[in-house]
């Protein structure tokens, strides 16, 4: 196999967020760069969603394991803040997968966080906007908790950041 940036990204589609196993790291937006040198050395740059996310180290090891599994042994995976993550970096495919998984995807926004953005999140189960935020913190750092007044269920949102 000749190494190209595209086929490395295709391989990395296999690596899923350990807490949201339908979502690949590519669709999560945490793979910020792939470089291949002339002698086929692969560099993958990643960035954390949340700086304190305990899954990031696991994800990095998973990327390394996946490269090895496909016979790539000349590589380096870096975790950097060079291109910091924000929730607009989630792909459309990723947003769809989040919703199917039962997590409200973050709205695309101008990166100015205010209460309005957080208050009325669309319910991933019934699509109602008649919802309230219960708390901006949830079972993982990237989730907030909401209640849908229409279908009377709690749901979680992948937080806008």
């Amino acid at each position, binding site marked *: 196999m000749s190494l190209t940036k595209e086929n490395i990204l295709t391989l990395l589609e296999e690596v899923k967020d350990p807490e949201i196993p339908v979502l690949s790291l590519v669709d999560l937006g945490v793979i910020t760069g792939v470089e291949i040198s002339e002698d086929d050395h692969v560099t993958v740059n990643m960035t954390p969603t949340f700086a304190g*996310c*305990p899954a990031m180290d696991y994800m990095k090891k998973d990327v390394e394991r996946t490269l090895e599994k496909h016979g790539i042994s000349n590589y380096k995976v870096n975790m950097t803040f060079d291109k*910091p993550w924000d929730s607009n970096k989630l792909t459309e495919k990723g947003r769809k997968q989040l919703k199917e998984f039962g997590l409200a995807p973050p709205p695309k926004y101008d990166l100015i*966080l205010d209460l309005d953005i*957080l208050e009325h999140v669309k319910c991933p189960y019934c699509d109602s906007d008649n919802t309230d935020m219960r708390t901006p*913190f*949830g079972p993982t750092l990237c989730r907030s908790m909401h209640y849908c007044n229409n279908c009377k269920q709690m749901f979680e949102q992948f937080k806008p950041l």
Partner: protein
Amino acid sequence: MNEQAIKDLLYKLADDQLILGHRNSEWTGFGPILEEDIAFSSMAQDKIGHSLAFYTLLQELGEAEPDTVAFTRNANQFHNSQLVELPNGEYDFSLIRHFLYDNAEIIRFEMLSQSSYEPIAKVATKLKGEVKYHVLHANTWIKNLGSSTEEAILRLQSSLNEAMPYALGMFEKSKFEQELIDAGVYAGEEAVKAEWLKRITAVIEKTDLKLPDLATIEPKFGGRYGEHTEHLQPLLDEMAEVFKIDPTAEW
């Protein structure tokens, strides 16, 4: 740029986050309601993550690796403000401290995201987005409880009075203050404090609480230079207890 000045700034930032992160984690399992238990636990995780980001920058400047720096220093080697090491007290005190601290921290991150020192600017750009949630959480609760029952208002007011000298201690200048300002690293502690005062006043004015007269308060300085209250060393001993059983263990 004077590397000592940058290191001093990084230690101050990292140590504040680590120590308050640890204090926040002490609410895990004890929050007054489940949502608050989760909120303080999440903020603990965020803050310890933030301290790791700054300790990693220190490592790149030749300091020891983050676990060693976090777990093997004694109290007099820590640069955190005394505010963050005080015991949690009751929920009203923890909430007031969280409000006073995070409203300052976000200003620091906003300023540092424009820093002439690029490694700090990148990390601060990332972290300020996360701290927004902490500020939002603190301001919402202060507004709600600060204009609710008599007991809530009395408790918060008494905690605010108690915490304020320590909060002012956050703005203790480093011996490299002017150098950092001149080099465009950030606008310095006086500037952080002025903006902080505006922001906390705007929230407090929406409640029945009163900001104490700052002119009559003697700030509790010393933390930035390794002088701490009796509360820091026991915190460090507890935090490092497992690490010290086997410092070479792989986690």
